[in-house]
């Protein structure tokens, strides 16, 4: 769908797709919510929604085209399972924290999953949200960080190094878990791990462009669309997985 629409952002979609698939297929129940804070991975979210029958083949074919339901970032309306338009980084964790707090106030046992990027932790609002979630002991909130180490114009270390993100969050009343974000067993174990009196924080060590050899760990695949030859190579790589 990215190739047919001539759209980029494929690298961050591939680094986060495994996490979205396992959350939606194995953990997200009716009444739970998933907020894709890194809205530029909308393609992975749409694919995941398609995989659970919430979107049709034709919907995916119309991705990013005129008259589509599927805009380049999650839309404001038109799709169940997408409660908020995201795409401007630094909003999603606050929205997720609000949903988690609201569920508690309403006496609901729903759980909120929020997937952020790693570069997004350069946003002050993300730290506002994290502080809020920890302060209010939102144990019905799971924060997943797609820690692929690359952002739009450099690596996260080059652009605004904060050292290891898990070290920074460890100062809050929260016990971060680090997993291989492409290892389903590790992801599953982390998602099953109970969190008591604090949100669950899962730092997923991921590979930007995971599964496509010429994209892996290459910053340019944050933005670039594929040409025909690259698409053919990518498909061959994925068929070998």
């Amino acid at each position, binding site marked *: 769908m990215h190739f047919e629409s001539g759209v980029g952002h494929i690298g961050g979609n591939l680094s986060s797709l495994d996490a979205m698939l396992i959350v939606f297929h194995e953990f997200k129940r009716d009444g739970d919510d998933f907020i894709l804070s890194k809205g530029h991975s909308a393609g992975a979210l749409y694919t995941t929604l398609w995989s659970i029958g919430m979107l049709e083949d034709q919907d995916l074919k119309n991705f990013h085209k005129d008259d589509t339901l599927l805009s380049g970032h999650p839309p404001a309306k038109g799709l169940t399972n997408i409660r908020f338009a995201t795409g401007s980084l630094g909003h999603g964790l*606050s929205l997720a924290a609000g949903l988690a707090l*609201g569920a508690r106030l309403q006496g609901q046992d729903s759980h909120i999953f929020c997937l952020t990027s790693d570069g997004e932790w350069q946003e002050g609002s993300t730290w506002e*949200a994290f502080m*809020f979630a920890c302060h209010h002991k939102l144990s019905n909130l799971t924060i997943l960080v797609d820690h692929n180490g690359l952002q739009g114009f450099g690596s996260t270390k080059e652009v605004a190094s904060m050292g290891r993100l898990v070290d920074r969050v460890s100062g809050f009343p929260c016990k971060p878990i680090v997993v291989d974000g492409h290892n389903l067993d590790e992801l599953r174990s982390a998602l099953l791990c109970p969190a008591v009196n604090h949100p669950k924080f899962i730092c997923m060590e991921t590979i930007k462009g995971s599964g496509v050899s010429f994209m892996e760990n290459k910053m340019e695949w944050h933005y670039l669309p594929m040409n025909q030859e690259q698409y053919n190579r990518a498909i061959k790589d994925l068929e070998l997985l």
Partner: protein
Amino acid sequence: MRKQLCEALQRRSSNPSMVFLTGDLGFMALEGLAADLGNRFINAGVAEQNMISVAAALASLKMEVWVYSIAPFLYARPFEQIRNDITFHNLPVRLIGNGGGYGYGVMGPTHHAIEDYGILLTLPNMSVYIPAFDEDVYAIVEKAVVDAGPVYLRMGRGEPPSDYLIPPYEPWRQLVKGGGPLVVVVGPIAGSYIACLAAMPFDIRPSLWVISELPLSRNPIPDAFLKHLEKAAALCVVEEHVRQGGFGSDFVLHCAVHGIQLPRLTHLYAQAHHFSKYGSQAYLRRQSGLDIDNLLAVLGLKT
């Protein structure tokens, strides 16, 4: 108005879905509400961006959500959160900004809110309420609750003369009847004109109106105002807001589109975010020419 706000909200506090968020403000004003709401009174701390998005999320769960801060902290810092998270989803979050206009006076320009409703009215479905008198807050809170979309309540300080009988709340109200020019004012500064205008002879006395709800497209100009407009020799629009995006330009455009002829028009507005020196709200209004002396001067009524 904070006293009336607290009382009005306390009357609603038995609603189990009501939740109130504050950006660490409300000391010596909102304690009663906090006590009534318990865990539904949330001090979100000095973190306004998060507070707005949390409010949006709570509203998406069908809760009755109120958010409070000093006005510029409420709309300027978290503007994108208001835009994306609240208005793009038409969520009924009620934003309460204290200190509209130059309300924080000598506290300085960081605390002033003179571009607030202009900015917010660029967003979809936003309704703005600007009480002219303290007592208006009761009616406005109840109107805001039934408003299906986002709301901004610009709080100030009512300034009527002590013996003035405040008319029941309406979006448009005539405060002083007169046979002279028309004056239409946004918000509580209207109250500061009443005593002087009411003392003038009827035939030259300005007809003073106040508007408390925007945008104009959802609060049509009343027929009585339009009838007076046909006969008036002059019209003055007054607002404690910058010229760009203010009520004045919206009013003139509305009249032009609807073929309403305007007499000689003067627009008094907030001239600057800061001047060479600082002072009270009254001082800053004088610097902007919003005081009664300048109003009379531009209307040719100053002797």
